[in-house]
């Protein structure tokens, strides 16, 4: 009896030690991001108000502006355009993967996209500068930035779509073709209703990703000031990401720094909004 108790206590000790160790290692991973977030909002609090969010710069001042509305819209415009450009290609690739590709091609495709995902986005930015901005003479513009961003989020989007389509069981499609449905009908009437939620989730995650990318748009799409609203897809924009970057370089002006904090907080909220939406979506029904 007492031996058993002893053993039990030993085990418990070992267990609590282990638990303490795991906690010790896990805590920083939890605490540091939380602290960073708190700090951002702490710093941003003084400037965050209605005017800051929905005011626009006069377009002349050097970042010392009443509001960041045009930056906010610029970020959203770029990210939305990038996702719109990337989606058809991601879908096409995934459909090819699921319907026509041989196992060998499937492996190649997923390896390729995994590799693409590992390429630093600044490399794409550089390519965009050389090819789109200069060679195609699109200039530093909304279009150039959107295309480069589309390339950056394409692997994410394509891999998500691949995984979604791969999760549809073969029997499901077969039950459809046994009824004489064509490939197109199977895709539209069986696959899409079944997986649109996951596809939309992927799209929202891609939005979040596109919103948080800075490097690829820095020299393809954005300027610091001089622009309030883009008049066409060939005009440059201002975005939150680059706004923060430029302001942070002016490290000694407390006003600019506080605007940077405010912009950062808004950007974090924006990204979090899309990421959260993506999380919540599949839970609201569906299979």
């Amino acid at each position, binding site marked *: 009896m007492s031996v058993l108790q002893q053993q039990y206590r030993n085990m418990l000790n070992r267990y609590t030690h282990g638990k303490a160790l795991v906690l010790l290692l896990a805590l920083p991973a939890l605490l540091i991001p939380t602290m960073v977030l708190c700090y951002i909002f702490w710093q941003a609090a003084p400037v965050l108000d209605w005017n800051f969010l929905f005011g626009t710069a006069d377009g002349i001042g050097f970042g010392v502006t009443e509001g960041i509305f045009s930056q906010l819209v610029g970020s959203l415009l770029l990210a939305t355009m990038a996702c719109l450009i990337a989606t058809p290609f991601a879908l096409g690739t995934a459909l090819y993967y699921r319907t026509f590709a041989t196992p060998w091609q499937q492996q190649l495709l997923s390896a390729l996209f995994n590799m693409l995902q590992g390429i630093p986005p600044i490399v794409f930015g550089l390519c965009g500068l050389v090819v789109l901005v200069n060679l195609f003479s699109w200039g530093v513009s909304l279009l150039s930035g959107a295309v480069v961003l589309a390339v950056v989020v394409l692997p994410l989007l394509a891999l998500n779509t691949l995984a979604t389509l791969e999760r549809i069981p073969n*029997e*499901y499609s*077969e*039950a*459809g*073709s*046994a*009824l*004489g*449905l*064509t490939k197109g009908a199977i895709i539209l*009437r*069986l696959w899409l*209703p*079944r997986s649109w939620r996951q596809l939309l989730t992927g799209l929202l995650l891609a939005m979040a990703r596109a919103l948080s990318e800075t490097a690829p748009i820095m020299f393809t799409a954005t300027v610091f000031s001089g622009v309030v609203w883009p008049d066409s897809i060939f005009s440059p924009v201002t975005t939150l990401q680059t706004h923060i970057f430029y302001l942070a370089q002016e490290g000694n002006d407390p006003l600019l720094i506080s605007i940077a904090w405010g912009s950062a907080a808004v950007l974090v909220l924006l990204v979090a909004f899309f990421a959260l939406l993506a999380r919540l979506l599949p839970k609201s029904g569906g*299979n």
Partner: protein
Amino acid sequence: MVADLRHDDFLQAEPAGPLESSQNQPSAVLTVEKLALSLAGKEILQQVDFSLSAIGVTSVIGPSGAGKSSLLRCLNGLESGWTGGVKIDGNDIRQWPGGWDQLRRHVGLIAQKPLVFNTSIRANVCFGLHGWRQRRRADGLVKASLQQAALWDEVADRLDAAATTLSVGQQQRLCIARAIAIKPKILLLDEPTASLDPLSKQLIEQSMLQLAQQIPLICVTHDLEQAQRLKGQVIFMCDGRVIEQAASDQFFRQPQQIETREFLRWSVCDCD
């Protein structure tokens, strides 16, 4: 038309010839010659030969893994890597006008595992119909198909409920209704009554016999008594080959092959 041809008549009966001339709307006749299928380097079907009379049920029996489901999948084009010849009304199914999709509308298949789509019961029944307008205006067809599948009484008041809420047996009948709704000219059923209670089984068998007055049916079954009740022809398969084929009376009374006798008596088959 005579529903159950005699064994020897059956073997001599040439496929399309006499039937084409005898009817305005010719019922499909199926002939299978030297059908062979290999999957993943394994021979699933070898030298399968048989033919189907214009109407009536043909039961396919045989031990598990004999290749019965695979045979049906070949006939419907879900499996396309086979060799040999399959002809319907004298037309090679590989050269079917409109391709495999059209063939599958002609040759309905009810799979072994019932799988309903994640929509309403009504939408499931209409799923194979072309065009959303047809699907919308198909109330009569939905009712008729569900009645034929012996499901109407249970779902009449909840046609718009999700099909996944049905029991497995009900889902199986829904799959039958779905296949009937596109009015196939040949119907292949893979163990259609495997998960049904005796009453539904009886109802389904009645429907099958009724349908079999118009079109040929192939019904894979593990239930030997069912094969007897369905009359018509019986094909006994083992290890990817057709061992014996005969009219059901004769098949069960006087099986010709040793393997068949063994199978009927002990439910084992040792055909190697």
